[in-house]
C-alpha cells in the first residue's frame, strides 16, 4: 500500500488570526487532487503548514504522513520522508547555485540513510541533472545559476518542478504553480508534472484557475473557503467553478 497524507481537523493561526478552521483531507500516492478556492481562503497557508514553515502556528488537529505524525517533524525530516512543496514564490538564495542546492538535498538524503555516505559522485550527479533538465527543456547552464536570482516567473516554476523530478517525492504539493505563467510556460511546467505522474506520486495541486487542470487532470477536486474544505467532487467540479465562479460556493456556505 502506498503512502497517504492525512489531514485531520487542522486549525492554523497566522499572527493570532485563525486562517485554517478545521481542514480534513486525504491524499494517497497515485492520486491527483486539486484544491481550489478564492484568494485568501487558506490554500497557501495549508501548503506551508504541510511543509513545516515555522511562521505558521498549528492550534489543533493532526497531520499524518505515511503513518508518521508530521507535526512532530522539522521541514527537512518531512522532505526526507517523501513530502515535497513546489513554492508559489520560491525565494532566491544568492551565492547558492541550483546545482549546489540540489546536491545538498540529495546528499542530505544519503547521509540520513547512511551517516558514512560521502554523497553522490560528481559524475552521477551531472548525468542525473542533465537527464532531468532535458526532460523539462531546460538549458544545462541553468544549473550553474544562483537559485532563483534573476529567474523569470516561468524559470522559477520550472526550477521547482526540476527539484521535484530530482527528489522523487511520494506526495507533492504544488502551490499555485500556474500563477504568473504564460500559456507556453504553463504547458512546459504542466507537462513536467504529468511526466512524473504515476502510482508512486500523489499530488495536491493548489490553484485558483481551471486551466492547469486541463493538463494535469485531477482525480478529485476540493474547494476551500474561509479556512475549510466546503465542497468535494471530481473533475466536473473544477469545470463548474470555471464557468460559474465561486459565488455559488459563497452563497451555499453563508446561506
Amino acid at each position, binding site marked *: 500500500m502506498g503512502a497517504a497524507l492525512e489531514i485531520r481537523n487542522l486549525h492554523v493561526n497566522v499572527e493570532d488570526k485563525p486562517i485554517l478552521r478545521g481542514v480534513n483531507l486525504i491524499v494517497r500516492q497515485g492520486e491527483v487532487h486539486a484544491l481550489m478556492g478564492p484568494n485568501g481562503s487558506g490554500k497557501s497557508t495549508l501548503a506551508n503548514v504541510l511543509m513545516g514553515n515555522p511562521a505558521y502556528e498549528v492550534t489543533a488537529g493532526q497531520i499524518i504522513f505515511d503513518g508518521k505524525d508530521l507535526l512532530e517533524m*522539522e*521541514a*527537512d525530516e518531512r*522532505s526526507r520522508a517523501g513530502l515535497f512543496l513546489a513554492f508559489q514564490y520560491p525565494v532566491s*538564495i*544568492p*551565492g547558492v547555485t541550483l546545482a549546489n542546492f540540489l546536491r*545538498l*538535498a540529495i546528499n*542530505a538524503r544519503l547521509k540520513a540513510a547512511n551517516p558514512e555516505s560521502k554523497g553522490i559522485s560528481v559524475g552521477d550527479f551531472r548525468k542525473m541533472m542533465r537527464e532531468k533538465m532535458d526532460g523539462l527543456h531546460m538549458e544545462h547552464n541553468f544549473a550553474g545559476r544562483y537559485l532563483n536570482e534573476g529567474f523569470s516567473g516561468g524559470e522559477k516554476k520550472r526550477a521547482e518542478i526540476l527539484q521535484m523530478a530530482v527528489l522523487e517525492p511520494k506526495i507533492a504539493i504544488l502551490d499555485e504553480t500556474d500563477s504568473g505563467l504564460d500559456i507556453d510556460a504553463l504547458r512546459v511546467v504542466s507537462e513536467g508534472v504529468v511526466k512524473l505522474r504515476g502510482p508512486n506520486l500523489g499530488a495536491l495541486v493548489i490553484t485558483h484557475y481551471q486551466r492547469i487542470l486541463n493538463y494535469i487532470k485531477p482525480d478529485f477536486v476540493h474547494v476551500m473557503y474561509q479556512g475549510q474544505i466546503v465542497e468535494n467532487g471530481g473533475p466536473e467540479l473544477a469545470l463548474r467553478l470555471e464557468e460559474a465562479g465561486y459565488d455559488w460556493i459563497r452563497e451555499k456556505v453563508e446561506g
Partner: protein
Amino acid sequence: MVAVRQRRAAAPEAPLYTRADVEALSAAHDEPTWLRESRLAAWDLYQRLPMPGKNDEAWRRTDYRHIRWDEAGRQIENANPSIEVVPGAYLEPLIGDQQGGVLVFVDGKLVQYEVHPSLAEQGVVFTDLHTAVREHEALLRPRLMTKAVLPGEGKFAALHAALWTHGVFLYVPDNTVVELPLHVVMYNTAPGATLGHSLVAIGDNAQATILVDYRSAEFEDQSLFVGATELLVGDEGNLRYVGLQDWNRETYEFSHQRARIGRDGNLDWILGNMGGEFIKQFIEVELDGQGAHGRVSGMFFADHEQMFDQDTQQDHNAPLTTSDLLFKGAAKDDARTVWQGMIKSLPKMQKIDGFQACRNLVLSEDARMDAIPGLEIEADDVRCTHAATFGTLEEQPVFYLMSRGVPRPEAELAVINGFFEELLDRIPFERVQARLRESLEAKIVGR
C-alpha cells in the same frame, strides 16, 4: 544626594619603547648608517605624534585601550626559531602547484628561504628585508617607506619605520614576468611584538603574484603586530597580491597597507581577515597613472570578542583610472566590525570610474557592524558609486533548503556561504578560496 560623575575617555597609552631599543635593533643587524638614521628619524617622529584616539575620525569607533603594552609590546623571545614548528599545511602552496619562492619567518626571524633559480637569472629579487639591506641597497633604499607608506602618516607607521623587525622584499625588473607565484609565511609561536614589512616593487610591463600569510600559534599572553605593506606597480605592470590574516585571539594588529599603480598598471588585491583580537588596517590604493586599475576584494568574519576595523581608500590621481573595491563580512557573538571607505579624485581627473561596497551580515544580536562609505570627488566627468548594506540570516532561504531535506545547521551554513560567494568568485586562486571557506565554516559552526 546626587552623585555627579563625569566619564572621560582616557587617552590611549603609548607602547613602552625607547630610543635605545631602536639603536639596539639596528646594531644587532649591523645596519648601514642610512638605515639607522632613517630609523632614528622615524623614532623622533613617533615621539612627536600623538596616540590616535576617539577624537581622530579614523579611530572614533575603535577602542584598543585593553591592550597591555608591557605584555604585547615586549620583544618576542625565541633564541632558536625553526621551520620545524610551522605546521606543514601552512607551507603548502595556496596558488598553483609550484612556487617561485618561499620565505618563512618564525617569531620575526627568517627560518626558510627557497627561491627558484630562474628568478635570479631574470634579475628578480625575492628575499628578506635584512638581506636586501645588505645586498640590494640600490634597489631597496629609494623605495623603503618613501613612496607608499610614509613614517609620518601616523603613530603606528612611525613606530613601524623605527622598529620594523623583519619583512619581505620583492623586486621585479621592467619587462619581466614572474610566472610562478611567491609565498611568504609570517608565523609566530610566542607572545610579544613583531613589526613585519612587505615591500613589493613591480617594474614597468612586469608581472608577479605573491601571497603573504600571517598566523600564530595559540598562547595566552597578548601579542602585537605593527605592519606595513607597500605595493608599487609600474606602468603597465601587473600585480596580484593576497594577504591572509589569521592571528591567534590575543593578537593586536595595527597596519598601514598602500599600493601605488602607474599608467595602465593593474592590481588585484585580495585580503582576508579572520584572526586576531583587534585589527586596525588602513588599506589604500593610489591610482597614479592614466588608465591604472585597482581591484580590492576583502573578506572578514569576526566572532567572539573580535574587533576588526578596516579603512579603505581609493585615490584617483589621474584621468581614466578605475577602481573596484568590494568588502564582504560577517559578525557573530559579541564581535564588532567597522569599515570606512573613501573614494577621492583630484580636480580635472576626468573619466574616472570608482566603485566601493561593503556588505555586512550580522549573525547575532550582540554583534555590531558599521560601514561608512565616502566620496570626495572634485572632477565632474566621473562615475563613482558606493554602497553599504546590512542583513541578517534570513529564515526563508533556510526554510527553503530545509524543505528539500537539508538539516538546519547545513542549511544555515549554505546560506551564509552563499553570501560570501560573490566575494570568493573574485578570487582567481582555488586554494585561497578553499582556505577562506574553511575559516568561514569553522566560524559559522562555532568553536
